[in-house]
C-alpha cells in the first residue's frame, strides 16, 4: 500500500479529532437557542460516544488477527465485549447513574462512606487503566510500523503525545461529540471496505468459506518470512524454499517437510502449493497485538475460553472509561436506555471483524507466519481490490484504526487522570489535572516501550480480569446488598483484585512457569472473581456492626426512580402550599 495514502488518512483522523474536540461546540450560541445548549445528552448520542470510546484497537484490528491465528474460539472476545454491557445493564447501569458518582472511587465512597475503600479503589482504577492503555500504545506502534515502516516506538509515542496534548490543553472540550464521531468513523472504516470486499469475493465466484480447521491455501502462494519462526505442520507438506529451513540452505528447491515443527530463518521465501495446509506459528518471540497466551490456550482451550468469558462478561462494568460515561446520562432511566443502544451499536460493529477474519483465512492465510496477523484487516483491501480503489479502502481502514487508538486512549487517560488528580496528587487545580494527564500516560507509554515481549492483546484481557474480580463484586454487592461493609469491601478488593493483579503480573513477567499453573495464572478470572465475591460477603458478615450508617438512604437513592425522588415530590407539594413553607425534611437531610 502506498504510504502516502495511509499517512494522509491518519493525519486526517487526528486533525478531525482535534477540530471536532476543540471547535465543534464552540459555535457561539445566543441566548435564544440556549435551550438547545442546555439540553442533556440523549441516549443515542451518549451511546455512540460510549461505543466510540469502547471499541479499541483490540476490537478494530485484533479480533480479525486472532481469528486468523487461532480460529473461531476467538469469537468469544467480541461476544464477551458486547455481553459485558448486558451484565452492566441488568445490574449496574441505572443505580450507578442514580448514585451521582462520576468515577468508581466516588461510588465506593458514596456507598460505603469510607476513605480507605475509596483510596484502594482509586489505586485499582489506575492499575486497570494503565493495564488497558499499554496495549493501545503498543498496537499503535505496530500499526504505524506496518503502514509506513516507521520504528515501533513512534506510533505509541505519537498517540500518547496527541492524547496528552489534546486532553491537557482542553482540546477535548466536547468529548461526547468526538467519541460519537469516532464510533461512526470506525464503523464506516470497516463497513465500506467490507462491502467492497464482499463484492470482490462474489466476483471471485463466492468460494465457500473456509471454516474448517486447519485453514488451507486456496492458491499457490509465496510467503517471505521476516523473522525466524518455528512453524508447526499438522501433516506432511511439500514446499518450494529459497532460504534456510531447519538450518539447511535451499536455493529455490523443493523441500518435503514432515509433520511437526520446523524452524524457518528470517528472509526465507516459501512457496506453498494450492490446497496445502496453512502451518501454525509456534509461540516464541510473540509480540503482536493478536498473539494470545498461546501455550496455555493450546494446553487447556476450554478453561481458557471460560476464563475469557468470565473476564469480559463481568469486567466491562469496572473499566474506568466506561463508568465515567454514565455520568453524562441525565437520569437512571436514560442510562438504561443508553446501554441498550450501546449493545446494538457494538453488536453491529462486531459483525464486521469476523467477516475480515473469515476473508483473511481465505485470501491471506500466510499472515499467520509473517507476524503480521494484525495487519489482516489493513491488508485485505489490497488483496481483493486491485488498483487505487484497494489503496483508498486500505487508507480508510488505517484512519479507522488510528481513530480506535485515539478514542480509547483519550477516554482512558481522562478517566485515569481524573482519579489521579482527585485522590493521588496532593493539590487540586487545572494545572494539576494537566500534570495528572501526563502522569496517566507516561507509565503505560514506558510500559509499551519497555515490555515489548508481552503478548499485547492479553493485556486487555488481563485488565478485564482484574476489573471483573475487584470492581464487579464491589458494584454488584454495593448496589444490591445492604450488608456490605467497608472492611468486607476492602477484603474483597484486596483478595479478588489483588490476586488477579498478581497472577497477571506473574504472567506478564514470565514467572508463571508452565502447565496448569501457567494456565490458571494467565486466565485468572475463573477463580479470582469467586474469590472476590466470597471475600466481600464473608468479610462483611464478619464485620456486621460496621455497616455504613446511611446505607438505607443510599439504597433508596440508588433504586428509587427519579419520578419519585425527593425533589420532585417536594416540588409537587410546594406548588400546593406555597413558597412560604418551612424547608422540607428532605432538604434538611441532604445537608448532612
Amino acid at each position: 500500500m502506498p504510504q502516502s495514502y495511509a499517512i494522509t488518512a491518519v493525519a486526517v483522523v487526528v486533525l478531525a479529532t482535534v477540530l471536532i474536540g476543540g471547535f465543534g461546540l464552540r459555535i457561539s450560541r445566543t441566548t435564544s437557542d440556549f435551550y438547545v445548549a442546555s439540553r442533556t445528552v440523549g441516549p443515542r448520542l451518549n451511546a455512540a460516544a460510549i461505543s466510540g470510546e469502547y471499541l479499541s484497537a483490540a476490537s478494530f484490528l485484533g479480533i480479525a488477527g486472532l481469528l486468523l491465528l487461532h480460529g473461531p474460539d476467538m469469537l468469544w472476545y467480541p461476544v464477551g465485549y458486547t455481553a459485558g454491557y448486558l451484565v452492566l445493564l441488568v445490574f449496574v447501569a441505572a443505580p450507578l447513574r442514580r448514585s451521582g458518582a462520576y468515577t468508581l472511587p466516588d461510588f465506593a465512597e458514596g456507598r460505603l462512606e469510607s476513605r480507605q475503600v475509596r483510596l484502594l479503589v482509586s489505586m485499582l482504577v489506575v492499575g486497570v487503566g494503565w493495564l488497558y492503555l499499554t496495549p493501545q500504545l503498543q498496537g499503535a506502534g505496530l500499526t504505524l510500523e506496518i503502514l509506513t515502516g516507521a520504528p515501533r516506538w513512534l506510533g505509541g509515542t505519537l498517540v500518547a503525545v496527541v492524547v496528552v496534548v489534546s486532553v491537557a490543553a482542553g482540546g477535548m472540550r466536547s468529548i461526547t461529540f468526538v467519541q460519537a464521531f469516532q464510533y461512526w468513523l470506525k464503523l464506516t472504516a470497516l463497513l465500506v471496505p467490507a462491502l467492497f470486499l464482499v463484492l470482490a469475493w462474489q466476483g471471485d465466484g463466492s468460494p465457500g468459506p473456509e471454516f474448517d480447521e486447519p485453514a488451507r491455501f486456496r492458491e499457490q502462494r509465496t510467503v517471505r518470512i521476516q523473522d525466524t519462526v518455528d512453524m508447526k505442520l499438522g501433516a506432511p507438506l511439500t514446499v518450494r524454499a529459497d532460504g534456510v529451513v531447519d538450518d539447511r540452505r535451499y536455493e529455490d528447491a523443493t523441500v518435503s517437510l514432515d509433520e511437526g515443527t520446523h524452524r524457518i530463518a528470517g528472509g526465507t521465501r516459501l512457496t506453498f502449493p494450492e490446497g496445502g495446509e496453512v502451518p501454525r506459528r509456534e509461540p516464541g518471540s510473540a509480540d503482536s497485538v493478536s498473539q494470545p497466551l498461546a501455550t496455555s490456550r493450546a494446553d487447556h482451550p476450554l478453561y481458557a475460553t471460560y476464563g475469557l468469558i468470565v473476564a469480559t462478561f463481568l469486567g466491562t462494568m469496572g473499566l474506568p472509561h466506561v463508568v465515567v460515561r454514565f455520568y453524562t446520562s441525565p437520569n437512571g432511566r436514560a442510562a438504561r436506555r443508553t446501554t441498550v443502544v450501546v449493545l446494538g451499536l457494538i453488536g453491529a460493529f462486531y459483525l464486521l471483524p469476523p467477516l475480515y477474519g473469515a476473508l483473511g483465512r481465505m485470501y491471506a492465510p500466510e499472515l499467520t507466519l509473517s507476524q503480521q496477523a494484525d495487519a489482516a484487516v489493513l491488508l485485505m483491501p489490497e488483496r481483493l481490490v486491485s488498483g487505487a480503489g484497494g489503496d483508498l479502502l486500505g487508507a480508510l481502514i488505517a484512519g479507522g484504526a488510528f481513530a480506535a487508538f485515539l478514542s480509547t486512549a483519550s477516554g482512558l487517560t481522562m478517566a485515569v487522570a481524573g482519579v489521579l488528580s482527585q485522590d493521588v496528587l496532593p493539590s487540586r487545580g487545572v494545572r494539576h489535572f494537566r500534570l495528572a494527564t501526563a502522569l496517566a500516560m507516561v507509565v503505560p507509554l514506558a510500559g509499551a516501550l519497555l515490555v515489548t515481549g508481552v503478548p499485547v492483546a492479553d493485556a486487555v484481557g488481563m485488565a478485564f480480569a482484574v476489573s471483573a474480580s475487584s470492581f464487579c463484586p464491589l458494584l454488584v454487592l454495593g448496589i444490591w446488598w445492604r450488608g456490605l461493609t467497608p472492611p468486607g469491601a476492602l477484603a474483597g478488593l484486596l483478595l479478588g483484585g489483588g490476586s488477579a493483579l498478581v497472577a497477571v503480573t506473574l504472567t506478564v513477567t514470565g514467572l508463571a512457569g508452565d502447565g496448569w499453573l501457567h494456565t490458571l495464572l494467565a486466565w485468572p478470572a475463573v477463580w479470582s472473581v469467586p474469590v472476590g465475591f466470597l471475600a466481600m460477603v464473608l468479610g462483611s458478615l464478619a464485620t456486621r456492626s460496621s455497616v455504613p450508617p446511611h446505607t438505607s438512604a443510599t439504597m433508596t437513592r440508588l433504586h428509587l426512580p427519579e419520578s419519585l425522588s425527593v425533589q420532585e415530590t417536594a416540588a409537587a407539594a410546594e406548588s400546593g402550599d406555597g413558597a412560604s413553607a418551612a424547608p422540607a425534611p428532605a432538604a434538611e437531610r441532604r445537608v448532612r
Partner: protein
Amino acid sequence: MTGTGAAVLLALCPLLLAGGFLLGRRTAHPVGRSDVGTPVERATFETLHTASLAAPPLRAGLTEDTARKAAGRLRTLLGTDALCLTNRSVVLAWDGTGDQHGDPVMDRLTTLLDTGRGAAFDCSCGDLDCPRRWGVAAPIVVDHRVLGALVAYAPRESAVLARATEEVARWVSVQLELAELDRSRTRVIEAEIKALRAQISPHFVFNSLAAIASFVRTDPERARELLLEFADFTRYSFRTHGDFTTLADELHSIDQYLALVRARFGERLAVTLQVAPEVLPVALPFLCLQPLVENAVKHGLEGAVTRSRITIRAEDAGAEALVVIEDDGVGMEPERLRRILRGEGGPTAGIGLSNVDERLRTVFGDAYGLVIETGSGAGMKITVRIPKYRAGVHSSPSSHQDG
C-alpha cells in the same frame, strides 16, 4: 404429639408473658384509676404546674431578668429555703431567705464551670439554724457548654436535695436548649428572607415588570413570553426545597434572567454561551451562578455607552466542571474586590460575590472558592470549579426530567 404441643406452649409462655407485660405497660394509664387522684399524683400535678410556670421565662434565654422570674418557681419546685442561678461570671438571681451577704458563690463554682460536674459545699456558718449552712450546685449545660449553675441551700446536708437540684438543673438546661433552638430557628428564617432578598433585587423585579409592561401594547406576544419567563425565574429563585441543583437547571434559570435583562437593554447586551453537555448533570449549591451573571451584567452595562458582551462557558475538565463568566465592562480595583470578598464591601457592593464564594467553600472545600481576574477598566473573569462528585452533594434535575 401432645408432648410436642406442650413443649411449644411452654416455650411460648415466656413470650406471651413478655408480650402481655409490654401490652400492659403500653396501655396502662394513670387517668381513671382514681377519681380524685392519689397523693403522689396530686404532688406530680403540682410539680408539673410549677415547672410549667417556670418554663416561659427560661425560654427567653438565661439573663438576669429571666433568671429572677424563674428563680422563685424553681425554689418552690425544690422546696428549699434559698436558691441562686448564676451564669459563668456572676450571680444572676437570688431567691429565698437571707441575703447573699458576701458568700463567695462564684469562687465555689470555678471547678463546676470548668468541668461541668456538680459540687456541694459547706458554708461554715456559725448559726446552726441558718438556712444556708450547706449548698449544692448543679451545672446548666446547653449544647455541651456549661452556661451557668443552679445552687440550692439547706440547713443540713441532704442527698435528696442534691439529686433534686441536679434534676432541676437538667430541666433548666433543656428549657434553655429549647430557647437556643428557638433563636437559631429565627436566625434561619431571617437568613432565608435575607437570602431571598439577595436573590432577587427589588430593582430587578421593578425593571423587569416595567420592561414587560412596555411590550404589552407594541408586542403582546413577547410580553406574554417574558411574563412566563419571569414567573419561571421567580419560581426557581424562591424554591425552598433542596440545597443543591443541577448545572442544567441553574443555567436554565440564568437564561431566563438574561431574557428579562435583554428585554430592557436590547442590543446593548450581547451574550455568548458555550456549554459542554457532559457537565450539565453536575450538582452544585442552589443559585450560586446567577449572582455572578447578575454581577457581570451590572459591570458590563455600568458606564458603558456601547455594547457590552458577556460570555458564559461551562467546560468539562475531567473530574471537575469549569464555569467561566466573563464580561468586558468596567472591572474593579483588585483591592476593592478583596475587601468585598472579605465581606467588608459595604451594603452596595456585590453581596452576591462573597456569598457565593463562601457557600462554595463551605460545600466543596477551600480549594473551590471563586477565582476572579479583574482590573479597573479591564473587565472581569470569574472562574468557578465544581467537582463532579462530592459525598453528600446530591441533586436530581427537576425541570429537565424526561417525562
